[in-house]
């Protein structure tokens, strides 16, 4: 049943009475007693209907006020949610920057650790090389010169090697993070 039909159904008795009263009013040679009785009934029903209309108007107004109050509250809450979202987005950006910094620091530390290990190994290797030079050439001074040059060369390459390693680790970490983000997104 449609909404209009359901409202009609709610007022079926009232409609029926109106139809009866209309039929009576259109009668020719209406009996005065019958007319008076119908008028009386009409008066009683009209009073009841008036009470009903006033009550329903009052109920309707109250419901509308309630809806208006609910709408206002919803708007306020929507605005609050919008502000919280904006704040969360900002926090996300800050978090992202922090993560990037941490990743960079981690990569740097890794590279430094590796360089340190290489340094130790090369130091041991250079001492051994110096010993070998001395043994092969039997010229202490030359051996010292060669090994010193070798050590200087190594020192000069440390920083570039460290930077290269740091960049490699950083690129790999960023790539891994992108893979995780894509996997979570899908």
């Amino acid at each position, binding site marked *: *049943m449609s909404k209009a039909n*359901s*409202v009609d*159904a*709610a007022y*079926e008795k009232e409609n029926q009475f109106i139809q009866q009263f209309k039929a009576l009013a259109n009668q020719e040679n209406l009996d005065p007693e019958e007319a008076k009785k119908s008028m009386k009934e009409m008066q009683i029903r009209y009073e*009841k209907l008036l*009470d*009903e209309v006033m*009550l*329903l108007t*009052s*109920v*309707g107004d*109250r*419901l509308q006020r*309630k809806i208006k109050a609910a709408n206002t509250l919803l708007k306020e809450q929507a605005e609050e949610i919008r502000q919280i979202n904006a704040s969360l987005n900002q926090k996300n950006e800050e978090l992202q920057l922090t993560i990037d910094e941490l990743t960079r620091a981690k990569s740097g530390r890794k590279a430094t650790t590796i360089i340190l290990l290489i340094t130790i190994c090369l130091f041991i290797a250079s001492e051994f090389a110096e010993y070998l030079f001395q043994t092969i050439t039997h010229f202490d001074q030359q051996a010292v010169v060669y090994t010193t040059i070798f050590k200087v060369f190594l020192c000069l390459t440390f920083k570039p090697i460290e930077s290269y390693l740091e960049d490699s680790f950083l690129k790999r970490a960023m790539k891994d993070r992108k893979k995780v983000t894509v996997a979570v997104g899908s």
Partner: protein
Amino acid sequence: MKSLYIPPTDDTPLVQFIPETNDFRIEGNSYPENSAQFYQPVVQWLTENLGLMTNRTTFHFNFDYFNTSSAKFILELLRIIEDFHNRGNEALIKWYYLEDDIDVLESGEDYQRIIKVPFELVERQDV
């Protein structure tokens, strides 16, 4: 004397008559898609059975929310109770409302003004 039980749903209230205690009860939410379809059987039951009640009957109306078309039928039920009372039978109407629910309270006051039957407004606590 027949008992009556219509279970509650999200949109319609519990309707119950307990013959042992002579208690008639409507409680819950009332915003059915078709109020006439829901309430006309209740109106009919009350019209047919109210005359069979001999002891004092208490009518409990305990709504959380009702729409405008339900308000029309609530009035119709109250009018039937009023006719029953006017025929010399004992009837008491209890209209319940939550402490902070001004809307249900004021609706009860509106009905109290129209219906000439002992009519109590009862504040209830939320459980």
